[in-house]
């Protein structure tokens, strides 16, 4: 993208939306027998994504079953409270990053217009 900051914000947003997809999937499968909660290590993946060089988008992280959740009688271990927390957490993260990105773009716009905005 435009500069290192926007590139990093872009990767952050991509990662947050990928995680949101997993949360949506976990909620949809809250009553599916045998379904295991899927997630990835957000901090580790973010670190890896920010370290990656170049403009290319890193490959989507592989999701795996989350250990330590209470398994119900039907073998399903989706915890709706956990998913609700992640749902709002992701929305807030996304919000914050888009606000940053917007102010970056605004600065650029101002520069293009010679400060007259």
């Amino acid at each position, binding site marked *: 993208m435009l500069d290192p900051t926007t590139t990093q914000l872009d990767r952050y947003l991509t990662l947050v939306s990928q995680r949101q997809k*997993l949360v949506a999937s976990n909620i949809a499968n*809250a009553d599916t*027998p045998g379904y295991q909660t*899927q997630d990835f290590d957000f901090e580790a993946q973010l670190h890896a994504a920010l370290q990656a060089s170049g403009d290319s988008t890193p490959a989507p992280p592989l999701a795996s079953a989350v250990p330590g959740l209470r398994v119900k009688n039907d073998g399903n271990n989706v915890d709706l409270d956990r998913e609700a927390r992640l749902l709002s957490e992701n*929305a807030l993260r996304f919000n914050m990053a888009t606000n940053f990105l917007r102010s970056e773009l605004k600065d650029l716009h101002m520069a293009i217009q010679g400060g007259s905005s």
Partner: protein
Amino acid sequence: MSLFNSLSVSASGMTAQRQRAEVLVENIANADTTRTAGGGPYRRQDVVFEAQAVGQPFSSVFQAQLDNQPKGVAISQVVVDQSEPDRRYLPGHPDADKDGYVSFPKVNPAEDMVDLMSASRSYQANVSAISAVKEMINRSMDLFR
């Protein structure tokens, strides 16, 4: 785009829960039905959920194979309760057998009501997920302004 895909995942959850609610309501409505097209009393039905990749187009199916995509949910089958019906002694009933017993469906309305509440809660959870994702998409759109 990744976010639009999560909308279809949540939508599949809503569809599945709605179909489950339909089956449960049918059970409650037919709690006293002694006559069916197939003969005998009504038999209680229940749904079985199954995780399933969402999005039919070839590219998304292909992509799902590539990167272990999150799954939506679908109803894999509707199971019919095969247990013995309840027998009540009602000699005047048109469906009574020669001993005067009528077979009634083995439907426990309390059980179906609890399942119905669970379906409704899960439906709400999916709706919340859709609203959250919708908000995120709107935020991205705002970047264009």
